[in-house]
């Protein structure tokens, strides 16, 4: 249920170190997983700029950010959820459902803004369903969201069948594709930046955020220290549903296309990026800047490789290998560290046992 912290060898008392505070602040800031991912991202960008033709055009930035915006958005609440050692697999289905709602309501003659807000609320409602089943009924989130993944997708496809709604007010579709004036950065980055700052403050600078790490590390301990675990998780799933609903509206406008099968499979892209960004699937570890860098890394690598004429299968292979490497390196490091600590612990234990006699 909870991640078993590396079992300390019985004689670690003398060698126990406090990981987080054993280095100077600048080292803690610069030498960690998040920094590694950001460094890798910068390296990929630098190499792509140097060797991939046309990568330096402003179109690259526009297209790249526009296409990964839904993933960036959903990755924010997903990070919080995974930090508490839960998971939400239904996000892509919520995107599809919200997209279909936007389409149906617009077609029914609702003003677009109202249709969009309703679609976002449908996302919120989907989050409430998930949250209720997970925290009130007490079912595991993996099982619940696999179920709602099928359920929400089923409702979305059922509402629209195999048809697509493609007529949306031009004002809104243009707005979704508009760049921030004078820059190649798409306008969607403004709401994203606001949300990212909001989520970063929530996760890293509030007691609520600290309680998420506490829950992820040890649910019982968190509960006994006064954290309302159920309510906290409920809130997270509602946030996740709402943001996915918003991403659904954006997705619909971006492609002028409301279909039941929109964004199929996106949940795995989101989770892959979150894990690549250094969030532990066992909870209790991770930071938002790493996650954002993770999403950007996958997006940039894909964009650069596509520009270089690499086929999508190979791009998938490279992204997959990168993800596996990042997970393996983390586990390998932890394993090596445990071995080192226990080996040194034994040595020190032995040397500590003999001298004190005099």
């Amino acid at each position: 249920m909870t991640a078993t912290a590396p079992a300390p060898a019985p004689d670690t008392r003398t060698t126990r170190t406090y990981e987080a505070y054993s280095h100077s602040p600048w080292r803690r800031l610069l030498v960690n997983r998040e920094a590694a991912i950001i460094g890798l991202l910068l390296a990929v960008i630098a190499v792509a700029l140097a060797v991939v033709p046309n990568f330096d055009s402003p179109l690259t930035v526009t297209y790249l950010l526009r296409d990964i915006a839904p993933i960036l958005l959903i990755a924010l609440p997903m990070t919080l959820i995974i930090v508490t050692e839960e998971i939400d697999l239904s996000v892509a289905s919520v995107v599809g459902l919200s997209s279909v709602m936007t389409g149906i309501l617009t077609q029914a003659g609702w003003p677009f803004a109202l249709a969009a807000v309703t679609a976002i609320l449908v996302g919120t409602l989907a989050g409430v369903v998930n949250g209720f089943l997970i925290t009130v009924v007490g079912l595991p989130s993996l099982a619940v969201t696999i179920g709602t993944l099928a359920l929400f997708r089923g409702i979305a496809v059922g509402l629209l069948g195999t048809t697509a709604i493609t007529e949306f007010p031009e004002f809104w579709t243009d707005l979704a594709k508009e760049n921030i004036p004078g820059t190649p950065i798409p306008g969607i980055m403004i709401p994203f930046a606001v949300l990212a700052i909001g989520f970063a403050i929530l996760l890293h600078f509030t007691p609520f955020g600290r309680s998420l790490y506490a829950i992820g590390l040890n649910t019982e301990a968190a509960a006994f220290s006064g954290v309302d675990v159920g309510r906290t998780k409920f809130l997270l799933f509602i946030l996740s549903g709402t943001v996915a609903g918003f991403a659904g509206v954006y997705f619909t406008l971006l492609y002028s296309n409301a279909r039941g099968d929109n964004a199929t499979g996106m949940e795995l892209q989101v989770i892959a990026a979150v894990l690549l960004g250094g969030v532990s699937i066992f909870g209790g570890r991770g930071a938002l800047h790493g996650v954002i860098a993770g999403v950007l890394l996958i997006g940039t690598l894909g964009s650069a490789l596509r520009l270089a004429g690499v086929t999508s299968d190979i791009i998938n292979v490279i992204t997959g290998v990168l993800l596996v490497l990042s997970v393996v390196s983390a586990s390998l490091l932890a394993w090596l560290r445990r071995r080192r600590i226990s080996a040194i612990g034994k040595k020190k234990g032995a040397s500590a046992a003999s001298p004190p006699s005099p």
Partner: protein
Amino acid sequence: MFTQHRTRRLGMALTAMAAAAALTLTGCASGGDNGGGEGGGDADLSVTFLPKNLGNPYFDTSSAGGTEAVEEFGGEFAEVGPSEASPTSQVSFIQTAAQQGVGALVVSANDPEAICDALDEARDAGVKVVTFDSDTNPECRDLFINQATAEGIAKIQVDLIAEQIGGAGQIAILSASANATNQNAWIELMEEELAANHPDIELVETVYGDDDDQTSFDKTAALLQTYPELKGIVSPTTVGIAAAARYLSTSEYKGQVALTGLGTPNQMREYVEDGTVTAFALWNPADLGYLAAYAAKALIEGEITGEEGDTFEAGKLGDYEVGPDATVLLGDPYVFDAENIGDFDF
């Protein structure tokens, strides 16, 4: 302290390794492309094919036709595409082509609307857009290469069945689903064609196999039992014709009841070889790709703009004229029979 240093260094090393791996891959990949980009830049005849998905024999054939044409006129051919044919999966490839500034993009659209904006942006960036096989909305592309008209498809099937049953007798139609737009349009035109030119042929019933193999198979069996005098079946859907052929080939009606319609060579090969089916129709995807590539060239060179009445030359296929709605028609459907089926693999 020592421990900490060691693991940290190892961590850095691993990260560096991962980075190096990713970069090497990026480097290799782009190294191969540099030549292509330059070549395309010189001639400005770089043509990128974007089929609905890769690994689809139909589009492999059309891309082979495209490659042949592009090599003939000395351009640069590239094929890109998603691994699955979902509505929005083509967008990133269109964007990439726009960034690369290719001369023309030849697309078979997975969705008439979803890729429209991306195509418009590519055209703004100077890329000519030709659609083939599946069109987008007419305002999002410069030219559509139409594989066949509904009239042409209806006529060839009626001609084939008339020839195979000797111009007289009962026939039935095995269609897709009852509300399939394409099939219904063709069936209506076939009925007109039968009434106008083949008064001795009686269309007794149209049944619907829902483009499901088993349903189509069962409907074929039911047709043959209901109409013992039946001389021929027309199936204007690839699923239907294959299922009907499978039933006929193992039944007593093999060789007695004629079967034709729209099918693909790979599905129909064994039934043509064992004599169940004499001939069936479809267009030739290789010619379709070939023509699309030449149309792209004509657009890049400014020979045509997509205006009705523009003409251009398409290598071995001869001259073509742009029709209404910036559409170019490939020609009459192609008839596959025992003679030529071995030349095709799709």
